[in-house]
């Protein structure tokens, strides 16, 4: 599914309401990652308004508001609400960093193909990719057990370390061919 998929939702989807709401959530993320008019980052409130406008416009054709779980609900749907809430949360962070978006990931993947497969960049890109799919947190990346400062992470890269790492290790993975 892509946010540019059939917006009129005329496919044979089993649950068009869920798909419609997911597409609106993807549209919100798409807007928030600089894909707006003039390619400029826009405020989360503006993203809200864009999504509402899209939903209202679609309702003329589909007969329902995909922003909501039920037509009688007064609040946003359970799929769309967390996405919009995250955009507001991100905007409220002082000195925030640029989020890792799909375009950056695609560029990183291209660069990783040019380097040694054992080097840092391919390892990072694979980690980011797994994080996108599984929602890794910092401690699942390469951290030892215990408390740590996010500014000074104690990377558990000492190969003979007796520390029990909280990171994903090879024996946590079971492959089925």
């Amino acid at each position, binding site marked *: 599914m892509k946010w540019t998929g059939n917006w009129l939702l005329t496919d044979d989807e089993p649950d068009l309401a869920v798909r419609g709401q997911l597409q609106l959530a993807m549209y919100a993320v798409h807007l928030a990652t600089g894909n707006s008019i003039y390619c400029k980052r826009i405020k989360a409130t503006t993203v809200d308004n864009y999504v509402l406008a899209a939903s209202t416009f679609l309702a003329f054709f589909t007969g329902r508001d995909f922003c909501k779980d039920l037509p009688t609900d007064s609040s946003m749907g359970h799929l769309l609400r967390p996405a919009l809430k995250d955009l507001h949360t991100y905007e409220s962070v002082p000195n925030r960093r640029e989020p890792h978006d799909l375009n950056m990931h695609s560029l990183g993947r291209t660069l990783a193909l040019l380097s040694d497969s054992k080097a840092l960049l391919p390892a990072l890109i694979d980690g980011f990719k*797994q994080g996108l799919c*599984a929602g890794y947190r910092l401690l699942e990346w*390469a951290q030892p057990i215990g408390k740590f400062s996010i500014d000074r992470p104690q990377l558990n890269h000492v190969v003979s370390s007796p520390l029990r790492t909280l990171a994903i290790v090879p024996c946590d993975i079971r*492959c089925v061919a």
Partner: protein
Amino acid sequence: MQITSVTAVSLTKVWVKFWTQKNGQHGEEKLFVLNPDPNGICMVASLYRALTRFVKLRLMDGRLHEERTPLSAYHHGPTNTI
């Protein structure tokens, strides 16, 4: 580990165990399946690459341990360390 004896496309699914989770379900195993889109983001292909990287790194340094060394280990060229 026998990951090098199979190809990425022959892997159909991968189970990953999450030992520590924010929701308290420690030790939960999650299933990931192959993304048929070769240009799409695929957890299975990414884990395959990470595992094969780990195997190659262990050939360079036999101290890498399947239970203690993070999967995200990499080779640092300038210092020739892992």
